[in-house]
């Protein structure tokens, strides 16, 4: 049903843009959307495609950019990592899009990196990730570890008094890197090694009985215990269900999650989860007019009164507006000019503040800690006093401590080593090497 509607909408938008094009002197600005619409990641990525389409519609209604209309070019990489690279090539080489909004998983981003660098494209990546990367052609509008994981741990340590830590994650690059950073950070803060328990589970893990029982006994050592969860998407539902069934409440052992948002909660009965935490840079429940307007717009766009918004959607909102501002500033959609112009651009976020693009291609974000409520929403219980700038290279990993990224001239480098004074390989080269 929705597909029909989308097609209809898409057609009418197309018709509209075609008719407007006839009037406009120039060709439309082509916006590539590289999100999986089928396969395992469709659950998370389809809403992001819809978000970008909605933003484009709105921008066009306001007259487009530089008097030109915007046009969405949607491709479906089908949750298939190598296909992401092919589709990115198709977008850049064949469709000649001016900018791409896309990717969710880190492997898909790594697969796309060499292509975007080779063909000098622009990619806005909207999801929180493990950091350790800064590409000339990529803008990271999601959180780096210092914008999500570290502040969340600080909150637990200082406000809740947690002394014993369970780092539970799905077995892939984001949780592994994040947990490595957190482990070093916790040990630096004086937490003993036996007070840290690290656990990895496969993708889509559904049998949590043993692990939850382990966490329960780990938590009965007389010190306040918390679980820091980097468990990915789907596996969270049975995990929380098991917590509830084994009688672990948020006041006993709180779980703070980095990958559980409104979208994930919309698939569960949240009753037993009330009080567990999540750290994000945006919650749907944030009390600001910008947010309420965005939600109204989203509900109207989807036609679903129950539609939820989430953090990566806000990241696209920010990224899209930053791109628009940068194009206006540069006066052209030329990739190099936009890359130059976008650094320092500042646009409103949805939490009532501003987000600025930093020289390392990461943005400033407030960090919010929210508690799960019985309506599948989060209520904000704590936030950083000011926004935090994303750090591409973590200070808590031995290899990356000395690296900085700065895409302004004269440095113009994503892997500058402050000790040796040399610029390392580009992110795309590194990704290509890893793939081999």
């Amino acid at each position: 049903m929705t597909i029909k509607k989308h097609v209809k909408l898409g057609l009418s938008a197309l018709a509209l843009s075609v008719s407007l094009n006839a009037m406009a002197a120039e060709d439309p600005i082509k916006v590539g959307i590289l999100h999986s619409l089928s396969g395992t990641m469709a659950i998370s990525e389809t809403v992001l495609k819809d978000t970008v389409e909605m933003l484009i519609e709105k921008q066009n209604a306001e007259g487009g950019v530089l008097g030109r209309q915007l046009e969405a070019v949607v491709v479906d990489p089908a949750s298939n990592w190598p296909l992401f690279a092919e589709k990115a090539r198709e977008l850049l080489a064949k469709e000649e899009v001016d900018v791409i909004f896309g990717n969710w998983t880190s492997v898909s981003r790594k697969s796309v990196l060499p292509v975007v660098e080779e063909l000098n494209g622009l990619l806005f990546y909207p999801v929180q990730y493990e950091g350790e990367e800064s590409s000339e052609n990529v803008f990271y509008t999601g959180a780096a570890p210092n914008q999500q994981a570290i502040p969340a741990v600080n909150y637990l340590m200082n406000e809740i008094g947690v002394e014993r830590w369970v780092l539970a994650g799905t077995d892939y690059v984001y949780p592994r890197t994040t947990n490595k950073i957190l482990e070093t950070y916790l040990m630096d803060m004086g937490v003993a090694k036996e007070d840290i328990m690290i656990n990895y589970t496969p993708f889509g893990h559904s049998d949590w009985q043993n692990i939850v029982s382990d966490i329960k006994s780990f938590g009965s050592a007389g010190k306040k215990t918390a679980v820091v969860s980097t468990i990915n998407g789907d596996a969270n539902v049975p995990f929380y269900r098991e917590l509830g069934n084994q009688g672990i409440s948020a006041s006993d052992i709180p779980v703070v999650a980095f990958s559980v948002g409104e979208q994930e909660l919309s698939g569960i009965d949240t009753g037993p989860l009330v009080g567990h935490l999540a750290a994000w840079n945006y919650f749907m429940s944030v009390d600001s007019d910008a947010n309420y307007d965005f939600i109204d717009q989203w509900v109207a766009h989807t036609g679903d009164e129950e539609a939820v918004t989430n953090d990566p959607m806000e990241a696209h909102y920010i990224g899209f507006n930053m791109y628009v501002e940068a194009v206006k500033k540069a006066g052209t959609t030329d990739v190099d000019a936009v890359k130059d112009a976008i650094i320092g651009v500042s646009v409103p976020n949805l939490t009532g503040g501003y987000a600025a693009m930093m020289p390392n291609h990461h943005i400033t974000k407030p960090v919010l800690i929210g508690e799960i409520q019985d309506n599948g929403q989060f209520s904000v219980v704590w936030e950083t006093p000011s926004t935090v700038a994303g750090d591409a290279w973590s200070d808590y990993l031995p290899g990356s401590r000395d690296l900085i990224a700065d895409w302004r001239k004269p440095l113009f480098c994503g892997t500058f080593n402050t000790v040796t004074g040399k610029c390392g390989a580009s992110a795309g080269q590194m990704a290509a090497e890893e793939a081999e």
Partner: protein
Amino acid sequence: MSIIRSLTLLLIALVSLWSLPASAQDDDPGKALLANLAEAPASNVEEAINAIVSSGDPRARGWLEAYGNNRLSRIKDTGQVVVVLNNRGRDWEIANPLTGENMGDMSRRELDRVAINNAIRGQLEGILAMLDLNAADPHVREASAQDMMGKVDASLVEPLEARLELEENANVRNRIEEALAIYRVGEGDIEAVDVLAGSLHPRARAALNQAVRSDDPVLAKKAGQALGTIEQKLKLNRAAETLYFGLSLGSVLVLAAIGLAITFGVMGVINMAHGELIMLGAYTTWGMQQLLPGQPGLALILSIPAGFLVAATAGIIIERSVIQYLKGRPLETLLATFGISLILQQLVRTVISPQNRTVVTPDWMSGSLVINDALSLTLNRMYVLGFALVVFAALMLIMRKTRLGLEVRAVTQNRNMARSMGIRATRVDIMTFALGSGVAGLAGVALSQLTNVGPNLGQNYIIDSFMVVVFGGVGNLWGTLIAGLSLGTINQLLEPWAGAVLAKIIVLVFIILFIQKRPKGLFPQKGRAAEG
């Protein structure tokens, strides 16, 4: 915590005030109390709660409960505090906390939630538990006494001791004593260690663990000994728990695989869309719950026949449209059914939604059966375990005792001979495939209670299903049961020391090696049928 001190006051006041009618709204003292709570900065919230508790207002409990559940909001314009009855969507249904009168819907923009966090919620739980200690139902008293464990502080000791004097129920007495002992051990009381020595409650263990680290050598030693005995008992419980976990995982495997044991095992069709038939069953449960809002239990029970029918119908369609034309060509069947599985997944994504759907667990299935403080068996998994056994028994009965079963066995053993005896082989094929698919649907209904209901549900189980069927011996239902349960148990035994990822790998390697040694699985088909 000075809040608690005033509790006794409140309790007395409650009784005396209950009979009084609600006074006029404007000079209602509740209005000021709630406004005070809503406007208090974080540091003064405790004081505001304290004021509400000591006011002795009979509505206090309701207010505090609403506050604890995040249901207290303030209208931005007027500053009036309201209770949110329904906080879904963009418009919230609100009510007046003073009169209980429904005030209709209000836009979320107009409302400001009264903030609460885990720390305050913990205190509130203590207060509410203290109130519940006076409930008439001993189960409520026991639960609230248990909630008090680890939350007792100096101000609570006196009211708790007073309560202990009055208490007649032995279980509740034990709980209160333990709660008090946890506090006393924390204060360095050596005698109290004895009370905790036999307790398996995690908070008792936490208190003893803390005592072991204390400066008093006598206390530390005694606590250490008490912990030793507890650890002994725990080991036993832990073993029982692991066994239960194993059987439960095993039952999930059996459920997922048993339909395949019929389509693949008995008929020899490699059906890669088996997982999606499971998914259809799970979606049927969701659909049923949408049709019968507010009655998740009834919907779940009705889903059992409905899930069977939906999946069986889908099975018949697949069999008629594709599989019958590919008889005896396993590779093509595999590829074709794999295609069907992708089609079904995408169909669900486009028709329903790529998002997971919420399937509610009925009350009688949530929570756990508490054997003791260290051993509790989760109810939903116990139901699934029972369900798996019932489905298995029913299938056995069908295969062994009914005409259909006889015909199925005849056709699979010697198709031509069966046909010459007057059995309509094509019809039997359809029935068998429908039966196997229907059972997959039943598995989906059960799985909807344990895992996500989404388009990817089936994928997670297809590999496991084939693994179980092959390991158990193709064509043998008993083999599937034994293989499922034993693989589940092995997996759960390995998991604590190998980790979830490695445990899965070890099990897989084990099966590969096993199949090398015994290619026909645990229980190979014997007799002439095996050669055919």
